[in-house]
């Protein structure tokens, strides 16, 4: 019985993922060309900046280190706060020092992973949320003219979520001692890259 | 499973309003025959659409000139337009023929071009693509895809076929029996589809449609009977009924694959892919019905008594309605 239900679940998720990837393709085929391309643009965008990619993965890694419930609270919080930041950008509310903020987020989040810091849950959520605003403000608003805002947003949000997922998946090595060490090494790398970004932003 | 299949009927009835009569609409055809180097004979057969002349028009390339007087003849099931044109010495390669008005219909138009050297080109214009391009040989997969889509289309539009399959689903108990029943229906209609398409036998459309309706009418009481726990030959061996009536439905599928003037070499290929399309559509329907039935069980829906009795009566009464309607058409056709 148990085996059968696990089997069912596997098939279910497989179908879900298949749908997930097949559906945008069919939308693209039918919606007007200029509009549909927005989804692709949105999907690609979060991958285009290394600072963004590293910070996202750091969120996933940290969540994996902290375990439940941070593991899921962080990925649930992040997209919503990030879109709040993007909305600020869309409404024309300026946010000073965006580049610096993003670089600092990579340093701090990388540092957290490096030190395996375990703050109280709400502090972790607020820290991640605070930086999410910067990321949203910087990246959520770069829609090329003539493309559909909704499709761009869908692509953008989904790609960000996938980056978290990658971080969490990488974080599963946390259960082995060697893996723990590797994670901290990754944190160090992200923090170091953060310093590079900071130097670029200031210089 | 059976008690949970109920609401599918409600869904089906939604489709009925839109598509019930659709199945009886015939495809149109356009035949272009090369007479001399730059002269072509053009025959456009526009099917009668819901009792009226077909809304679609034929629009030829502008630089083609009509020679002589175009003719128009009315038949029982179609209007046939005929003319001879001259291309003025230019090639017809890459020319586009349009069918304005086709987008508002559910008709497919088969376009066939025969050249002096005996080569034949076939293409289809449809509501989503209201034009046809004249060109040389096509790669095999283009033809395959075309007929696959046609078959898929045909079964999803054929509410009577779907209703028959639904009736079978309501009767069968257990996976093995389901598998047997669906397989024998498939085998049976494939046989007659092939026989009819390859020209070995032919079933005139009006009596055929009436007979198909009768097969649905037949299933109605059987569904009710099986629900009440009674048994009968059909309930014990549903695959037998599926096979017998499947032979009938195969002739019906053949009416969706107009082969008038199709080159003999292409026929088996088109037949194969048309059939694959039909099976695919049928599988999608069966799969959807089973998943829905599973969902109803997972949500633990308890249907009231009247709702449980609904499917059998719906299958039966729609079958009866179609039987009467189509018999009347049949009689009208005779007198």
């Amino acid at each position, binding site marked *: 019985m148990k085996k059968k239900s696990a089997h069912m679940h596997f098939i279910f998720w497989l179908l879900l993922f298949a749908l997930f990837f097949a559906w945008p393709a069919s939308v693209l085929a039918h919606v007007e060309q200029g509009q549909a391309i927005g989804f692709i643009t949105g999907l690609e965008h979060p991958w285009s900046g290394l600072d963004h990619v590293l910070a996202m993965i750091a969120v996933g890694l940290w969540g994996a280190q902290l375990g439940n419930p941070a593991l899921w609270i962080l990925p649930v919080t992040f997209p919503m706060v990030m*879109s709040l930041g993007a909305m600020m950008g869309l409404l024309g509310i300026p946010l000073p020092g965006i580049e610096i903020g993003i670089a600092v987020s990579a340093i701090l989040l990388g540092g957290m992973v490096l030190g395996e810091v375990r703050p109280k849950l709400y502090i972790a959520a607020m820290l991640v949320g605070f930086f999410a605003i910067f990321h949203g403000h910087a990246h959520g608003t770069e829609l090329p003219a003539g493309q559909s805002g909704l499709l761009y947003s869908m692509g953008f949000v989904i790609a960000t979520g996938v980056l978290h997922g990658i971080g969490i998946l990488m974080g599963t090595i946390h259960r082995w001692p060697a893996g723990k060490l590797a994670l901290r090494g990754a944190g160090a790398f992200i923090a170091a890259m953060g310093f590079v970004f900071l130097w670029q932003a200031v210089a | 499973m059976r008690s949970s299949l109920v609401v599918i009927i409600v869904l089906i009835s939604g489709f009925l309003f839109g598509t019930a009569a659709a199945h009886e609409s015939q495809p149109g055809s356009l035949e272009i025959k090369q007479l001399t180097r730059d002269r072509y004979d053009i025959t456009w057969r526009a099917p009668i659409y819901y009792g009226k002349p077909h809304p679609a028009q034929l629009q030829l390339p502008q630089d083609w000139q009509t020679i002589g007087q175009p003719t128009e003849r009315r038949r029982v099931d179609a209007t046939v337009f005929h003319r001879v044109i001259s291309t003025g010495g230019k090639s017809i390669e890459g020319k586009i023929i349009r069918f304005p008005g086709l987008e508002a219909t559910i008709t497919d138009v088969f376009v066939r071009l025969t050249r002096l050297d005996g080569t034949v080109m076939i293409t289809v214009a449809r509501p989503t693509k209201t034009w046809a391009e004249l060109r040389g040989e096509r790669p095999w997969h283009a033809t395959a895809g075309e007929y696959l889509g046609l078959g898929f289309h045909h079964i999803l539009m054929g509410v009577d076929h779907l209703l028959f399959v639904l009736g079978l689903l309501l009767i069968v108990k257990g996976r093995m029996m389901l598998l047997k029943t669906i397989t024998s229906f498939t085998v049976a209609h494939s046989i007659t589809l092939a026989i009819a398409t390859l020209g070995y036998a032919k079933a005139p459309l009006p009596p055929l449609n009436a007979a198909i309706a009768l097969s649905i009418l037949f299933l109605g009481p059987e569904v009710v009977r099986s629900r009440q726990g009674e048994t009968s030959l059909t309930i014990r061996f549903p695959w037998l009924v599926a096979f017998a009536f499947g032979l009938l439905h195969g002739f019906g599928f053949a009416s969706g694959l107009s082969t008038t003037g199709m080159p003999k070499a292409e026929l088996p290929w088109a037949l194969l892919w048309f059939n694959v399309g039909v099976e695919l559509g049928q599988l999608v329907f069966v799969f959807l019905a089973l998943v829905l039935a599973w969902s109803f069980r997972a949500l633990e829906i308890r249907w009231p008594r009247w709702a449980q009795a609904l499917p059998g009566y719906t299958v039966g009464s729609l079958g009866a309605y179609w039987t009467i309607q189509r018999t009347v058409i049949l009689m009208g056709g005779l007198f």
Partner: protein
Amino acid sequence: MRRTLFNNMLFLLGVIVSAALLLPAKAAAHLVTTGMGPVYDGIGHLLLTPEDLVPAIAMALYAGLRGRAPGRQALFYFPLAWLLGGFIGLGAEIMPSFPLTAISFLLVGILIAADLRLPAHVFAGLAAAVGIMHGFLNGIALKTGPGGLGLLGIMAALFVIVAIISACIVSLKPPWTRIVVRVAGSWVAAMGLLMIGWFFRGQG
């Protein structure tokens, strides 16, 4: 119970009507032609319009998270409300320019992400309200195309979507799968926020 439902609907209708009156705009709907008649055209419209499909799926996810009884409620109220809204929309003249759909993205998305429990009648009211609003917009969009038959097709498709998805979610056992659903909910809410942002930017 009935009163609350009624009040909810009344409130929502008020919002819709006032928005429609304040912000008239051109109906920028993309109609789909499947070549298989109006019923299938309606289904095609639903499947290819993310503004409608995503909230419909979200509603099903939320109903599934809440359990069997809400799943059944949503299964019947939601498509029917959608149809009702659709027939109201067929008679409407103007398309509201504010992305009303963003509200349902936001609302249902947050409810999923927070895995919030609602009293049964509030839940039913929510399903009905979201359904009526989307149906209303669909009705306006489909008026020039498939019309009422298209709406019937949409209702049938919604019924199938809600039944299958909520049944899947109801039968999920491992705890992490619920979390995946909640994460998806937060994505939907984020999309809603962004839609509102794009509207004010004038690029919705």
